[in-house]
């Protein structure tokens, strides 16, 4: 007899192991399952529904390493009622987790090709899992390029990790800020400006983009200008996801449910929807 799959609507209990304050409004939660609960395997780009009991439930992308599922890691920004309550959690607090859900980054499809990862702001969190994966199988890829844009130098996420990646000779890491402050000596300008500077072969590249929709749209346009086809550009969409299994319709995006068909989409499937005001 095959074991029955857990009910996707039923949250599993996890205990907060650590709340790391990354930036003034951004934090990372490390979670350990309660006894008897298994962390299901996940792929980079997938998300979980995190439930702060008595407050509410929100979707958050998994930002940990798929090869090392424990602890379960999520980074998010405190912007709404639930995420603000989440930021106030303390070690040993209990939280509900459903998932993982949705589609994943095309790390297998990208094998043998150059990989260009473009992140804007908190968009680096869902892409960090993909970074872990391609780095762990470095020999299977051509060039690996990370282009990261943040609002200001104070808003740069995962600073230590980024420095580690930057120090590797087999990774190309470019960071820019929209607004320079203080003693910042790095690049200033939007993340799309990094695309013409980055070394990759556009005919043999898979690009993964995550950030605000406007940023993703212009990034995709710039990648296309360089010669990357829309079939090789992948983006991660965000909508108001509730059930996470394609039933409730909250995250419907024209013919798609972001929770089930996405959040990661091949750009060629959604590019025409980007400019439709009605959806």
């Amino acid at each position: 007899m095959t074991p029955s799959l857990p009910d996707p609507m039923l949250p599993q209990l996890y205990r907060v192991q650590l709340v790391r304050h990354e930036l003034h409004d951004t934090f990372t939660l490390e979670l350990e399952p309660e006894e008897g609960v298994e962390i299901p395997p996940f792929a980079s780009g997938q998300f979980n529904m995190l439930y702060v009991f008595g407050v509410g439930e929100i979707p958050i992308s998994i930002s940990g390493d798929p090869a090392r599922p424990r602890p379960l890691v999520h980074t998010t920004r405190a912007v709404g009622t639930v995420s603000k309550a989440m930021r106030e959690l303390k070690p040993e607090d209990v939280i509900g987790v459903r998932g993982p859900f949705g589609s994943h980054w095309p790390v297998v499809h990208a094998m043998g090709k150059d990989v260009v990862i473009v992140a804007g702001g908190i968009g680096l969190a869902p892409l960090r899992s993909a970074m872990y994966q391609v780095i762990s199988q470095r020999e299977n890829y051509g060039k690996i390029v990370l282009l990261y844009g943040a609002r200001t130098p104070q808003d740069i996420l995962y600073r230590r990790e980024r420095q580690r990646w930057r120090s590797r000779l087999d990774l190309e890491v470019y960071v820019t800020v929209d607004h320079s402050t203080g003693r910042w000596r790095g690049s200033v300008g939007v993340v799309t400006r990094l695309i013409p500077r980055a070394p990759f072969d556009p005919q043999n590249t898979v690009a993964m983009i995550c950030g605000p929709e406007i940023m993703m749209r212009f990034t995709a346009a710039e990648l296309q200008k360089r010669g990357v086809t829309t079939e090789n550009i992948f983006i991660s969409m965000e909508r108001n996801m509730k059930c996470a299994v394609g039933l409730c319709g909250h995250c419907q995006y024209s013919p798609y449910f972001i929770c089930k068909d996405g959040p990661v989409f091949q750009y060629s499937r959604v590019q025409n929807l980007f400019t439709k005001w009605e959806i």
Partner: protein
Amino acid sequence: MQTLEPILEEHPFFKGFPSQYLPLITGCASNVRFNAGSYIFRESEPASHFYLIRQGKVALEIFAAQRGPRTIETIEAGEVLGWSWLFPPYRWHFSARVVEPVRAIAFDGVCLRAKGEEDHDLGYELMKRVAQIMMDRLQATRIQLLDVYGVGARGRS
């Protein structure tokens, strides 16, 4: 004698540039270097040159009273610095501070303008390339103004 022609041909700004014009514009070009911390030009000075950056990083700055200089953009290898040489009143709107030592090709703007006036095909070719850069920078500035990562902007939760 080695000329700057092969270097110009390799720079993205001159990619696909009609080869018959290259010797002509090379006559307006010179090799230059700038040390970190120095200024290539300063706001409101006459805009006599433009630069193809081959190496290094330049910060475009504007001076704000009581706030000091603010960097609005950086220009890096493979890019072009300056278009005020092409438009009256031929004065710089920003200052260009060297962040990382720069090697560049400097073009004499007066010389280039004169050649463009003499041969409008060359002038149009140059104008198209500068216009493309201006459009790219305008689009980038518009996105910058949207402050897409700011609080209140719709983004990733």
